[in-house]
Structure formats: C-alpha cells, structure tokens
C-alpha cells in the first residue's frame, strides 16, 4: 500500500473514528447514568475519563479543534474527580450529562461535514466553576499523550497534530538483505531504536512476497516505509542505520519542517506500532468483535435466502423423481436443510443489535423533555441487551422518542401535583425490552396520571373522529389517540402535541410489522406495549391454493384452520356471507373476492380464522392448504410498485413466485363491504 492510498482512505478512517466516538459516547452515557448508584466507584470515573480522553485523542488527530477544546475542558474537570480532589454529587452528574450531550452535538456537527457547532457559554462557565480546571487550552500536557495511555483505548490515533508542532518529519524507506538476517540481526532493533527518537509510524510493504509455494523461508522480502516525527537531526537518524552497514539500505527524506499542515494529509491510521506485538494491531480486552460493513451481511442474508430456495427446488425435484426421504440422498438433503436453517438463523442474528443502541439515545430525550416541561423524571432501562434486527432497530428510534416525550409531557404530572397526590415528586419512566413467544416486546411505562377516557372521548367527538353517543369500550377509547389529528393538549407545546403524534407512531410501527397496545389506570400511570417481529426477512407462513394459484398467509395472523362447510355459510346481504365460529358468527371473505376471479366455489374447502392486531376476526375461505414453512420475504416494491393486498412475495421450491397475503388488507376489504351496505341503506 502506498501513502497516497492512505490519503484516499482518509474518509474511511474518519468514519471509523466516528463509529468509535459513538461507541465511546454510548459507554459514557451508560456509565454516567449509573454513576449515581455508585458515586464512590473509582473504576466508573476512570472509565468516564477514558471515554472523554479517547474522543479528545481522536479529535486531535483529525484537527477537530472545538471537540478537542471542549473535551479537554471536560476531561480536566473529570480529572479532579478521578484524583479524589472532589467527590461526585448529583449536581456534578447533571453537569457531566450536559457535557456528554454537548460532546454528542459537536461530534454530530463534525460528522455532517463541519457544520458549525457553537458550544453554549453556560456549560463552559459551569465547567470553569470547578477549581483548577485550567484554561481551556487545546494543548494537553505531555503527560496526556503518553503512548501507553493511548494504546489502552479502543481508538489509537496518533497525536500528530500536537507532537508534530515542534517536530521534523522524516520519510524513511527501509530494505534489508538476506545477509542482514543471516548475521542474526533483526529489523525490530532498528525500529525500536528509531522509535526512541520520536513518534514512529511503520508500514510494511509485502508486495515482494511471492506465492507461498515459491517462498524461500530464509530470504528477505519485506520493505518498510516509515514516518518519523522527531526533534533530532537527520544525522542522528542516519546514525542508526550505519550500525548495520551495507546489509541495510535506508533512504531518509525530510518531508516537513515544523509541521503545521492539518494532519489529515498524513497517513495516520493503518500503521503497526513497534511496541505492540506486530501481529496483533489492536488488543481490546472487553469485546472480541469484528467490524463488518452491514451491506456485506445483508448480502449474506440474501444469498442464504437463495440457498433456502434452492433447497426447496432440490426437494421438489426429489419428489418428482420419486426419491424417498429415507434414502441415502434423502437423508443427506434433510441434513443439508437443517444446516441451511441453522446458517440462516446465525446470519440473521449477526444482523441483530442490542436494543441498547436505541435506548441509550433516549436518555437525552428524557432529560431534555423533563427540563422543558419542568418535571422531574427518572428513566429506568431494562433488558437493554435484547437483540433486534437492524432494519427494525433503525425504525424504532423515532417512534420511541415520540412516545417518551408524550409520556413525560402528557403522562407524568408536575412535581407539585405529584406531591399533592401523595406520589414521589420524581416521576418514574420505565423502558423495558424482552422476548415473548418469538416477538420482541418493548414497554414504556409511566407512573403518571393515566389516560383520561372521558377527555379522550370528548376530544374525539370534537375532532369529529367519532360521533357523540357512539358506544366504545375502554380499549377502543384509548386507541383513539392513534387516530390522525388527535391531540389532547389544548395548546401546542414545544415538546409534543403538534397533532402529528401518535398516529405517526402507529404508522411507523406498522411499517415494521409492529403492533401497539395500551393499558392505563387513572392516577397510577399508563403502559404502552409494542410488539415487534424479530426479523423482517423471513416469515413463518402457511402456503395455500386459491383459484389454482399458490399464496402464503403469515402464520401469526391465523388463529385456527377449520374445514369449510359451504352449507353452513349464510347470506347476510348482497354478496355477503356469515359463518358460524365457536359460539358466534364471523364475516366471510372468499379468496376469489380479492384475487379478482370468479369461481363456482366448489373447491372452497378450508376456512382460515384470521385475526389482526385489534383482535378482529374474519373467516377467509381458500381451496386447500399445501404446506407450513418458513419463507424468505421479497419486497415487491423493489422492482414494481405497491399492490393492494400483497406487499411482499416469496419464491417457492419450484422457482415460482408466490404472493404473501397482507392480512390488514382483508380487514380493509371487510370495511369496504360494510360501508357498501351502509350506502345501500341510504
């Protein structure tokens, strides 16, 4: 790799820095929010300090001055706590949290290509109130940039900017002969000697290494490109090489004197450090993870999807050729199926992230909302390690933000009102995630005033969402808050209540197949439960035949499958039928109604009892059930457009496409039929 390529990679390196920043900020948030439980815990303060320090280090390498300045100020205040000069109080934790938010803002500003970000003078003043916190100078003391300190951290950029200010930069290319090694010498000795002179970046050039079959183990193939920042003269540097005589060829070039350029032009990152073991460039104890571009994993998921389809094709060919399942081939194919299934589940979990990544951002939302509404709120997070597919996680952040704001703005009462009601003036907001029967449940629970059913009803009448006198049970009244244009607050507040609230929440949750439920007790609080699928790329479904064509219905919408007895269906209106089910009657939708063909109905033998998220039921009549299996979901919109009734499709074992039924559409169809009958009456 050449130095120019390094410069081209600068964007990628910046990206890594920002990723690391996000990690450090998340860790910071986590440690800060738990600090109040154990204010004496030295390890916590140390971790917090390291996070800030690490961000500062990276920022310095990229010349992000505002970030360096602020993190330095923050760090020097933290140092007072670390050294034990001050002890942690709730007030100082509040300050730290504010600082963390400011850091977030600055990082975000740099991420958006240097959009300007002003650090509020308030927070700077707040920090400067701490004794001896020092002037807000960006230059850290030499102690701050000790190499060991940096290598202990996740992101180990070199403080080029700071050290290079007084240094000369030498570019050195190093080549050793085979004799060099034969004499028992080692390049490491040279490199160690060079490192004593200043800051050294080492790049190994492996271009000359032949294929493994051609390698002669005693020959020397490697060359090194070094970048040395030192205060020593060229003579001092060259002296090191003279030691090894002709067996070592070194060219030393002075590339910069008193480096003042932005460090962005320097090949900063991919270097190997001499005092690390050369084979292990990063040693992070806390988690052994590999950073992989998410698109590669997506591609993997797609490929395994195709593997599943091919597997189906093999099995259908076997059936066609009458190969028995218990033959040798049959056993191999079954074992293969099992393996592919496992592979698929594993890769899908690779795409899963702990929900923590979303939860942690919400701490800030809660703090800011509480401040704006002048309420006292404590946020408790539970089950942050619950894992959710990335595609779902991405779409979860906005609805949750909105719901938390709502919970504080509308749910939790003012401290005075809470005291009067005999509650703790500090409201409790609990955010909990857990798995239940193959779905992820996220609960938002507040101990506020609870939903006021009468007020909601009045408001809905006023907004013409319902008609006065309409009879609704409690749950139906609660779900009115999800209607478009509904907002119970008389005046629009800064925080929530622009009337685009809960209906947007519901819609965005529906996009990821999420459902939402409310339970509430007056004076005690409200709980919103969101139920989410674990992944969007595979569904479990029943494949059925209707009008000679194969379709798939998601199994979690099918309550029961019963034999359809056409004689029991009874006429309830023009083209409308009812069907007995348990001790009641269901409305009937025939598959032929939605597929758009007309049939005599003689083939209709099976009735799916279909249920939607509102626990409404209907009878869906099809010809026959073929199989129950897992299906890879393909979006129709990718290459076509939205079509009513079927938003997704899958590919069957024979290579043909089958559409996946959109259950909500069936209920929409039911509604249309019902409205049709209303018009008839008028």
């Amino acid at each position: 790799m050449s130095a120019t390529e390094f410069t081209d990679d600068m964007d990628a390196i910046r990206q890594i820095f920002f990723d690391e920043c996000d990690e450090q900020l998340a860790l910071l948030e986590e440690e800060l929010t738990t600090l109040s439980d154990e204010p004496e815990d030295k390890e916590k303060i140390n971790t917090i300090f390291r996070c800030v320090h690490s961000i500062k280090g990276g920022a310095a390498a990229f010349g992000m001055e505002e970030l360096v300045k602020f993190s330095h100020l923050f760090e020097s205040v933290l140092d007072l706590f670390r050294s034990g000069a001050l002890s942690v109080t709730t007030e100082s934790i509040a300050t730290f949290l504010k600082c963390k938010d400011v850091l977030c803002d600055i990082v975000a500003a740099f991420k958006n290509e240097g959009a300007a970000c002003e650090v509020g003078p308030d927070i700077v003043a707040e920090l400067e109130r701490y004794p001896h916190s020092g002037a807000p100078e960006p230059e850290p003391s030499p102690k701050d940039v000790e190499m060991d300190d940096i290598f202990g951290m996740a992101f180990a950029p070199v403080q080029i900017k700071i050290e290079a200010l007084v240094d000369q930069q030498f570019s050195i290319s190093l080549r050793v002969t085979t004799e060099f090694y034969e004499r028992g010498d080692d390049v490491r000795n040279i490199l160690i000697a060079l490192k004593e002179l200043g800051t050294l970046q080492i790049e190994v050039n492996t271009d000359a290494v032949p294929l493994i079959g051609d390698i002669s183990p005693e020959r020397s193939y490697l060359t090194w490109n070094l970048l040395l920042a030192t205060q020593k003269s060229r003579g001092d540097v060259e002296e090191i090489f003279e030691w090894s005589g002709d067996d070592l060829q070194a060219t030393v070039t002075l590339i910069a004197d008193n480096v003042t350029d932005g460090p962005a032009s320097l090949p900063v990152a991919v270097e190997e450090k001499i005092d690390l073991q050369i084979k292990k460039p990063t040693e992070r104890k806390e988690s052994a993870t590999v950073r992989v571009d998410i698109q590669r994993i997506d591609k993997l998921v797609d490929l395994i999807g195709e593997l599943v389809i091919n597997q189906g094709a093999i099995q259908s060919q076997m059936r066609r050729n009458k190969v028995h399942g218990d033959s040798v081939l049959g056993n191999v194919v079954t074992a293969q199926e099992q393996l592919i299934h496992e592979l698929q589940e594993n890769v899908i979990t690779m795409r899963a992230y702990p929900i923590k990544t979303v939860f942690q951002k919400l701490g800030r939302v809660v703090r800011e909302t509480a401040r704006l509404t002048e309420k006292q709120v404590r946020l408790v997070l539970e089950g942050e390690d619950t894992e959710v597919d990335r595609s779902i996680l991405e779409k979860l952040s906005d609805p949750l933000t909105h719901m938390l704001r709502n919970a504080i703005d509308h749910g939790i009462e003012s401290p005075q009102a809470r005291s009067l009601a005999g509650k703790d003036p500090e409201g409790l907001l609990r955010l909990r995630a857990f798995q239940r029967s193959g779905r992820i449940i996220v609960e938002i629970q507040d101990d506020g005033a609870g939903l006021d059913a009468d007020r909601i009803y009045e408001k809905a009448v006023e907004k013409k969402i319902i008609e006065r006198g309409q009879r609704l049970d409690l749950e139906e009244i609660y779900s009115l808050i999800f209607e478009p244009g509904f907002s119970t607050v008389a005046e629009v507040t800064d925080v929530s209540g622009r009337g685009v609230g809960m209906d947007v929440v519901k819609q965005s949750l529906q996009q990821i197949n999420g459902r939402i439920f409310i339970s509430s007790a007056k004076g005690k609080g409200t709980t919103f439960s969101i139920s989410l699928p674990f992944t969007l790329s595979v569904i479990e479904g029943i494949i059925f035949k209707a009008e000679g064509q194969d379709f798939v219905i998601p199994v979690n919408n099918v309550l029961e499958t019963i034999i359809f007895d056409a004689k029991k269906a009874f006429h309830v209106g023009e083209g409308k039928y009812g069907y007995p089910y348990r001790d009641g009657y269901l409305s009937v939708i025939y598959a032929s109604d939605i597929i758009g063909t007309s049939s005599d109905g003689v083939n209709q033998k099976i009735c799916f009892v279909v249920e939607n998220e509102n626990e409404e039921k209907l009878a869906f009549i099809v010809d026959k059930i073929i199989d129950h299996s897992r299906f890879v979901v393909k979006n129709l919109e990718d290459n076509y457009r939205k079509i009513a009734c079927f938003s997704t499709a899958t590919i069957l074992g024979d290579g043909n496409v089958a559409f996946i039924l959109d259950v909500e559409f069936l209920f929409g169809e039911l509604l249309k039929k019902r409205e049709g009958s209303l018009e008839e009456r008028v």
Partner: protein
Amino acid sequence: MIMEKALVFSLGSQEFSVQISAVKEIKEWAKATPFPAAPAFVEGAVNVRGSVIPLVNMAQMMGLSDDNDEKKAIIFLKDDKKIIGFSVSNVTDISDIDEEDFRPLPELSSDNLKYYSNGILSLGGRLVFSVNVSSLFEGSLQ
C-alpha cells in the same frame, strides 16, 4: 458515426429496438405468477435468481395487440432502480445504430406509439421503431 448498439426484437410482425445499455438479460419466455388486480398487460411476477421481477407484455401495453402473439423471449431492462421483464415475440439481433438512420415518426402516428417510440430506424431497408426505455418503465408502473 456509430452512436451506440441497439437490441432489435419483434412484437408480432413489427420490429422494435432498445438501447443495449438498458438491457440486463434475455431469457426464454416462461409463465409468470399472475398479480391479482394488476392491469391486463402485466403478466405477473417471475423469479430471476432470487429477485421478484414483474413481467409486462410489451405489445399489449403499447396497445398494439389484444390477442396474445406468440411470445418466445423476455427482455429484462433496467433503469436506475428497478428491473422489469418484457415479453416479446422474438429477439432478432444487435445492430450498430448510426445517427443518420434516425427518422421522426409520421405525424399520423397514434398517441401510444408517440409515447413509447422516439423515432424510426431504417436498418438496411428494415423499418424498426426505436423504443424509449423510460416510457416503458413509466407505462409498466402505472
């Protein structure tokens, strides 16, 4: 001066062409899974190596014929985002197109033809309608 290459194909007895850069793939015609409630010219959806792709009867969409001409091939065309398959009677050849071969359509041409075609190519005496790929996509996604 050679402008570019074009794929020449037939719908019934008439020849048409599309720019070769838009052609993703050519396959033998196969029956598609019909879309419920889609326009009549949409034959359905086909699986091409794991992607679900709509199949459109080009002749029918252009209003050239209602009855089903013989369909032997599917031409898969791509734009920036989507891939759509078009069933055609047959694929003839690939020709170099010269700017001088281009002639505007006769005034009297139907609106449909004017929408889908941007001119006539005369290729050594053969009369070939040059088809707008963007119009094909717009028409298909109606």
